[in-house]
Structures are given as C-alpha cells and as structure tokens.
C-alpha cells in the first residue's frame, strides 16, 4: 500500500519534471534557431545591398568626370567591400552541411566579383575609360546578376532551414505530447488500481470488524445465559433445599424452642439469598427469554421497569411464533432494554409503548416514548450506537425518529430471509 502510494507520487513528480525540462529545451532551441535565422537574413541582406550599391558606385566611378570624384567612389566601394566580406564571414560561421555548397559558390562568386571591381578600379582615367564599357556591361553586370541569384538561393536555403527547424519542433512537441499522455494514463491507471485495492482492503477490514463485534456480542450473551442459569438453577436450588432442610429440622426439634428459632432464621436467610440470586440471574438474562420466548420476556421487563421507575410501559405484541431465531429474540430484547433505559434516564418519559409484530418475512419492533426527545443530527451515544450495532449484526434496519419536545420513536425491522419465524 505504502509502496503503491510512494510509486504513484514518484511517477507523478518524474512526469512533471520531465515535462518541464522538455518544454524548456524546446523553447531554448526554438529561440536559438530564430536568432540564427535573423542573423543570417541580416548578413544576406547586407551582402545583397552591398552588391547593388557596389554596381551603382562602379558605374559612377567609371563615369566620374574628375579623378577626385572617382577617388571618392573608389573609397566608398572599398568600404562596402569590407562590410560585405564581414557579413559573408558572419554567415559562414553558422553554416550547416546542406547549404555549404551553395554558400561556397556564393562566396566564390563574390570574391570573383570583387576582383573584377578591383581590376576596374585600377588608377588612370584613360584606363578607366577604356575598360569601363566592356567590363561593366560584359562582366560586372553579368557577375552581379549571377551573384544575386546565388544570394537568393542561399536565402531560400535559409528559409527552408527554419521551416525544417519548425518541423523538428513540431515533431518534438508531438513526441512530448505522446509521452505526456502515456505517463498520465499510467498515473491514472495506477491511481485507480490503488484506489480499488485500498477500497477492497478497507471493506474487508470493516467486515472483519463487524464479524468480530458480532462474535463478541454473541459470546457475551452466551456467557450471561450460562451464568444466569447456573445462578438460578444451581445456587438457587441449593438455597431452596437448604431452606427446606432447615424447615424440616425445625419440625424435628419439637420442644427445643431455641433450636427451632435458629432453624427458622437459617430458613429465612436462605430464602432471602434465593431472592437475591434470582434477581441477579434475571438481570443478567431473564430465563423467560429461553423458556417462554420473546413476548413473555418483554412483558416481564415492562412490568419490572414500571415497578422500578413508575413509568407506564405497554407491550402490544401479537403472539409471535415461539421459534423465532434466538439471535432475533435476544437482539429485540436487548434493544428494548436499552430503549427503556434511555426513556427513563435521558428522556424522562412518562409512558412508553412497545409494539412487536411478525410476518412470514420479517419481525418488526417499534418503541415510542413521550419523553424530551432530541435532535437526531447531533445526538449519538445514548446507547443508540450499541443498538444499531446489534441490529446490523442481525442483518436488520434501524431508524430513530425524534425531535426536542416530541418524544422518540425507534423502529426496527429484522428480515427473516428464509429463517423460520
């Protein structure tokens, strides 16, 4: 049980930790990918714009009227050359296998282009003029076109790469979701299994407890019966015999007055002890319950309580079959005993009505008093728990109806379930 709960908790914390870790990884790689993409796009844009601008500058250089302007254009061109190279090397730093070939041809193309530009930038106005037309139109423009095309291809690659990255991310997320579902299912199944096992165990121990309490109640009843019988039959009869013997001996004494008086006092002592023993036995378990059956025992109890307390106790009982199961007779008898006790002690009732009736399928008992009553929601104790326990042990139903100032009614139903009534 403990291992089960521990395992479940461990599984849940591992699943939680795993999920968090995977989420963080995914976020991190996604961010890294986007950063790389942006850096590359930027570099590529720089290269592209550098090349465009260089074309314009080269043309301006060629067409420059004076050498000062030409020189200015040349310097600008060289500056752009530098920044393009820097961007190119930036891009080259985060390169993967797929785009390596395209990138290499791009950089080769760029290098060739810049060589051409350098060549064109060779000093001398005449040379400039001479070379200008052929270079510019035949080579520079062509090269520039090819280069821009390559740059586009590299950009495409770059875009494809980020698409691929996103795909990878999707796959990762799918895998993660699957993993999460599996772990959650496992946890749920474990939880349900554990709950079932726990519930079963609880139910079993509850049943064991009930069986134990039933055995205890039965054992107690059996013990009371035995002690009551022993007291009544053995001790009581011996005392009876003693009283009789004393009485006979007194007769034999004839003229000895003192002896006769002594014998009579022995007789009276024996008789009063007999009464004590008899009452004790009846308190433990009335012999009527076993000898005469439930209803005579209930009537006796009602009379005794009425005599002792002054409370009016009425017993209304149809003649129940005598072979009511012993378990039921005892149960009803003890419940009535406890109920009468409550009515006198706690409810201060003036009268109680006890009704017992039987059919082929069940035995019903109702005990009604006109006492103080109580709120059934917050009153346990009062022996009610003990009654409920007895009745449950006998397989019956128990109902308490009461409210302050309106008396109390206890209703009991014991199903016979095929047992002979």
């Amino acid at each position, binding site marked *: 049980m403990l291992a089960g709960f521990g395992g479940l908790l461990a599984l849940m914390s591992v699943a939680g930790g795993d999920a968090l870790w995977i989420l963080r990884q995914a976020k991190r790689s996604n961010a890294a990918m986007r950063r790389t993409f942006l850096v590359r796009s930027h570099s590529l844009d720089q290269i592209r714009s550098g090349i465009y601008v260089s074309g314009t500058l080269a043309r301006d250089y060629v067409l420059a009227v004076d050498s000062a302007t030409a020189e200015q254009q040349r310097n600008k061109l060289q500056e752009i050359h530098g920044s393009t190279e820097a961007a190119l090397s930036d891009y080259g730093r985060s390169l993967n296998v797929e785009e390596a070939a395209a990138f290499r041809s791009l950089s080769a193309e760029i290098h060739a282009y810049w060589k051409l530009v350098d060549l064109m930038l060779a000093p001398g106005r005449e040379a400039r003029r001479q070379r200008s037309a052929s270079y510019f139109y035949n080579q520079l423009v062509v090269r520039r076109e090819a280069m821009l095309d390559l740059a586009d291809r590299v950009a495409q690659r770059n875009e494809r790469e980020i698409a691929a990255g996103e795909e990878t991310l999707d796959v990762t997320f799918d895998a993660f979701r699957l993993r999460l579902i599996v772990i959650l299912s496992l946890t749920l199944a474990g939880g349900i299994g554990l709950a079932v096992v726990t519930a079963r165990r609880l139910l079993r121990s509850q049943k064991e407890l009930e069986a134990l309490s039933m055995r205890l109640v039965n054992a107690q009843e059996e013990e009371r019966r035995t002690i009551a019988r022993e007291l009544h039959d053995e001790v009581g009869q011996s005392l*009876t015999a003693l009283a009789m013997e004393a009485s006979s001996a007194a007769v034999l004494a004839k003229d000895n007055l003192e002896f006769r008086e002594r014998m009579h006092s022995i007789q009276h002592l024996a008789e009063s002890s007999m009464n004590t023993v008899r009452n004790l036995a009846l308190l433990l378990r009335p012999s009527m319950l076993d000898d*005469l059956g439930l209803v005579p025992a209930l009537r006796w109890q009602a009379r005794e309580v009425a005599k002792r307390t002054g409370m009016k106790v009425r017993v209304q009982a149809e003649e129940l079959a005598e072979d009511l199961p012993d378990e039921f007779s005892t149960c009803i008898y003890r419940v009535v005993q406890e109920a009468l006790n409550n009515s006198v002690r706690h409810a201060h009732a003036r009268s109680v009505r006890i009704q017992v009736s039987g059919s082929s399928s069940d035995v019903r008992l109702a005990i009604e008093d006109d006492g103080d009553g109580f709120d059934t929601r917050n009153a346990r104790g009062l022996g009610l728990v003990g009654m409920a326990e007895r009745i449950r042990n006998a397989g019956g139903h128990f109902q308490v109806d009461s409210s302050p100032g309106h008396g109390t009614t206890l209703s009991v139903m014991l199903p016979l379930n095929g047992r002979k009534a």
Partner: protein
Amino acid sequence: MKPLRILLADDHTVVRNGLRLILQQQPDFQVVGEASDGREAVRLAESESPDVVVMDIGMPNLNGIEATRRIVTSQPKVAVAILSMHTDEGYVVRSMKAGVRAYLLKDSAEADLIAAIRAISTGKSFFSPAIRKLLQEDFIRQLEDNEVEDTYDLLSTREREVLQLAAEGKTNKEIAAALNISLFTVETHRAHILQKLNLHSVPELILYAVRKGIIR
C-alpha cells in the same frame, strides 16, 4: 383409606429429599416415584399412574411445562402441581395453559404445598397467594392497557355461577345437581361462557377465574 400417590419431578436430589421428608409426614401421602428430568417424569407418570405430580419447571431434557402438557394429554386424570422458583406471570400462564392445576413457589409454606396437593387431587385448583395476586393485578392492568371492556360483564348471573363451579373443578353433573338444573342446560351455559369470554379449554377457564379472583 386409599393413599394419595405422588410423583416428584425435580433435577435436584436435595430438593426431592426435602419434599419427600415433608410429604411423608402426611399419613395418607405416598411418594411413588422420583424423576430428575422432564422425560423421566413423563415415563414414570405413565408407568406409575400417580394421582398427583409435583413438578419443577427448570429441568434438563424436557422442562416441567412441556412434561405437564404431555402427561395431561395422555392421562387427563393426573393432576400436576408446579413447584417453581419462577414468580413471573409468563411462567404461570404458560403452565396453566399446559394444564397445570396448582402453581406454588418454592418458598411456599409447607402447609400450602400439602393443601395444594389435596385440592388438586379432588379436581380443584390451588395457587400461592403471591401468584394469585400477580395474576389478578396483571389482568386488571391488561384491561386498562388494551382499553377493552371486561367481558365478565356480558355473563348472566346463572352463567357466573356455572363459571365458578366449573373453575372449582366440578363436573357438569355436579354443577347440575348443585344448581338444580338439567345437565343439558349446564352444557349450554358452559358453551356460552367459553364463547363470551373467548376461552377454548378448561385450563384457560381456570386461568381466567383465578385472574378475575372468582376462585382462590
């Protein structure tokens, strides 16, 4: 004079010995057998045909009430006196319905026991004063509790006379002679009494009479 034949049934030897001692002091009493349980009592009652059985209730094998029922059924002439420690009305009523003619408590005076045996041997009934009181009080309480009218009021004067004589153990012929009426009239009265009082047997009639205080 023919002696009164008595059978003792009690599971305690000491009690039986004590009873024997008391009864043998009467010259016309003869203890013809002792039984230590209900079954033995039934068997001895058949073989010895006693006039009176003095019976305890709490006995092994078969209790005194059941033993009485069997003896009275097979030998209606045998009169049974219960001598018990049980003072409860339930025991008395059950015993009487089984056909017992006397119910005495074990702490009764010897004189009561002897008087009871003599009474039941002539067909009368006898109850310890405490038992009689108990039955009468209980009867009144039951009438009150169940709020029913006393059916005794339904009986005519002549029927009340017949009821008393019948409860005292008189035969119909004796009643007819005592009241100077015909046997047929007595039988008619008897039937009406049982019907009005909702009674079904002689033992029930005797029980009713004791409860009403009609007989002692």
